[in-house]
């Protein structure tokens, strides 16, 4: 049991901030910040999620064990997501690179280009 009782007014203020941030995230989606779009959207979502966890889920005043468990899980997911994104970004780039090197080659050619080094032998490519 937590010793601290959060006053009811605090919860109302947190709800107000959460609703304001929801409006901000919708308004921000109306502008184009290029590659920052997803960073801004997820950044605002993370601020909202933190407010819910800290105040509504009482992590701010509770014993730390709950926060330790929750943050460990969330951080594990973060590592999982980051490694997967690094992997998929690297793959898209390697498909584009041969085309950017030779000006004459068609963009995004899937087949092996003469300038790109063969990574696998023709035998292995024929395997299902």
């Amino acid at each position: 049991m937590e010793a601290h009782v959060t006053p009811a007014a605090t919860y109302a203020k947190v709800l107000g901030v959460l609703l304001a941030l929801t409006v901000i995230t919708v308004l921000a989606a109306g502008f184009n910040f290029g590659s920052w779009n997803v960073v801004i959207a997820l950044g605002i979502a993370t601020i909202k999620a933190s407010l819910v966890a800290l105040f509504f889920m009482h992590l701010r005043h509770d014993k730390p064990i709950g926060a330790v468990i929750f943050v460990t899980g969330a951080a594990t997911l973060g590592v999982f997501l980051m490694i997967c994104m690094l992997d998929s970004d690297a793959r898209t780039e390697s498909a584009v690179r041969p085309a950017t090197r030779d000006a004459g080659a068609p963009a995004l050619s899937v087949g092996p280009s003469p300038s790109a080094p063969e990574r696998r032998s023709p035998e292995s490519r024929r395997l299902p």
Partner: protein
Amino acid sequence: MSTAATPHGEFLQHHFTTAEQQADAGKIGMWLFLVTEVLLFGGLFVGFAIMQSLHREAFVAAHHQLDRVLGFINTVVLLTSSYTMVMAVHSARTDRRKRVVVYLLLTLICAGVFLGIKYVEYSHKFHEGLLPGRYYSHKGDSVPGQFMFFSFYFMMTGLHGVHILGGMAVILWVLRRAVRGDFSHAYYTPVDLVGLYWHLVDLIWIYLFPLLYLIK
């Protein structure tokens, strides 16, 4: 039946020494369960992120089929329900038994409104043939591969909707106990734990809304 030393001793189970120990143990168990929920949804989020980075144009074209206004209203409804839920916990802790019932009822109504709006959204998509995988039959797409977005849309919002239904069931259970007058400052663990679960469902929607409805 002999009454125990504490006024609400009837809720203290024999394998716990104190009510505080019992409440703490319950909370730790709930947090562990919530982490498994985060990882369950996490797999879908990571899959969505990978497919969206590989097929950005198809995902952006497909998300225009979603109604932003309905998504926004649902976000507001769910955030409000989180507030009424935490007020139910607060009322139990401060011994306002009637308010616990009122706030739990308000939370249930918000959950019902959320599912009602979801029903409107789903039936529109069913009607247009915007269905997952091989059931996708929407005509006139400008970018191929849009069915992929709807596979994720239905899996993620569907799993989230199932969690809302589960949440409504457990809120009904604590509501019954609140009407009976079980909860006070000395014992409110069930309301507290159902509250934690409900906030997690809200937390997942906080990420679903911008990712599905507002991507570019």
